[in-house]
């Protein structure tokens, strides 16, 4: 986007969005689960034209020394060049790392997965839950799409059976669901000219000053936040974003099962 286009967009985006949405309006959300049979859990989320695929893989590994009775969760994000001409291949850079860490924070801090139930042999063997985020199409607001896809994939995940030697038998009938007890939903707003826009598109992201992601739970509490991008916010911006996140989170949670 040229500097001139950006300047031009800045003059009216707070009054009229390019896709004619209201300031607090989310794009349509579609969730599809279980589409990757090889993965223990998977989900594809379409948020407007943004498309994100998340696969959950389960493995047996050793626990961290400071939590010998708890499973391990690992979130990773790949910004593959197929999703955006601006994305480059290679190891994750700061945007991919931030994305993965914001999603991770929502899952971890909400204690969404009961890690105590993922212990196989205290101090020796626990389940490791790998959540891999693949961006298929970047039309903005990757954090929300990835966060929703991750929790949908976790809800979809099944624990593989262990044979009598403690090895994973992925061909056997699964051993039941992954113990997922919370549904943290990240909801992001972008700020432009003191106006907050819900669920910003990729074009909007190029001109907004900053973004704020608020992740809430079913009980209305917040469990993670991230202000991303230069620019500043006020306490009343935060209040607005929190309220919107609670309202939107409730709607999105209805679509998860």
């Amino acid at each position: 986007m040229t500097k001139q286009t950006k300047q031009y967009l800045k003059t009216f985006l707070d009054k009229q969005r390019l896709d004619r949405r209201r300031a607090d309006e989310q794009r349509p959300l579609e969730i599809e689960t279980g589409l990757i049979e090889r993965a223990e859990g998977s989900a594809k989320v379409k948020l407007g034209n943004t498309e994100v695929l998340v696969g959950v893989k389960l493995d047996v590994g050793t626990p961290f020394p400071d939590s010998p009775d708890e499973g391990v969760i690992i979130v990773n994000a790949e910004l593959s060049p197929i999703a955006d001409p601006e994305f480059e291949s290679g190891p994750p850079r700061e945007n991919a790392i931030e994305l993965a860490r914001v999603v991770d924070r929502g899952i971890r801090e909400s204690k969404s997965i009961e890690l105590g139930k993922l212990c196989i042999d205290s101090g020796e063997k626990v389940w490791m839950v790998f959540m891999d985020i693949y961006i298929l199409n970047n039309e903005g607001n990757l954090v929300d799409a990835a966060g929703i896809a991750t929790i949908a994939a976790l809800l979809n995940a099944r624990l593989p059976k262990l044979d009598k030697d403690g090895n994973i038998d992925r061909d056997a009938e699964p051993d039941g669901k992954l113990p997922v007890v919370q549904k943290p939903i990240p909801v992001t707003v972008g700020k432009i000219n003191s106006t907050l826009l819900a669920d910003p598109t990729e074009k909007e992201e190029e001109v907004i000053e900053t973004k704020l992601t608020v992740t809430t739970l079913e009980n209305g509490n917040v469990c993670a936040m991230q202000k991303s991008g230069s620019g500043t916010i006020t306490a009343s911006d935060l209040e607005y974003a929190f309220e919107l996140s609670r309202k939107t989170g409730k709607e999105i949670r209805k679509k998860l099962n």
Partner: protein
Amino acid sequence: MKKPDDMKLIVKGKRLDGRKLDEIRPVKIEAGVLGRAIGSAYVEVGGTKVIAGVHGPRGVYPKYLEKQGRAILRVKYSMAPFSVNDRKRPGPDRRSVELSKMIKHALEPVIFFDEFPQLSIDLFVEVIQADAGTRAASIVAASVALADAGIPMRALVSSCAAGKIEGKIVLDLDGPEDNYGQADLPVAVIDGTEEISLLQLDGELNEKELKEAVQLAVSGCRVIHDKQKEALRRRYQ
């Protein structure tokens, strides 16, 4: 990390290190501590010790990062291997990459980038001892170092965290409180006002607690802001 069952973080309204709930750890700030950096600062917040150094404005390499008509800010936050109990492997990890980005975004709103077209302001923050709150201390040091370097800025950025331990909202978590606490909310504000340039949260809070924690963190930032100004005055008197 699991808290030992007999461990209490708050006893009779006082915290383990004797602080009140809304009390910040002892803060020490010194400007101009490095010889070769154009601007620098040393900051101590309790057991957390950081040094920030600024180079530039100078040419940008690789060239493609250069911005027409304005300067860029590059930030590298890193933790020394000896700064924590279990030696940290040197070099960037995912956490330090994210924190570098957060620190950069916290500082960018105050810098007049138009003054130095096509140049880069390079900021390096080294944590030499970590006892929670290293990103806040880094922002505090970075902001003083940038001022010491004479980079035109509209204000100083101050930073402090609030958190939740044993159900209570407290200011400026220390190491054990961070490890065994329920929530951590680092905040940075501009010029001691309520304009927030860093906001993150790890951990669950309800609406009332969130409000209280943000306000408390902002009040901590004000205390820090005064100390930052004092440090710069001492340096240039």
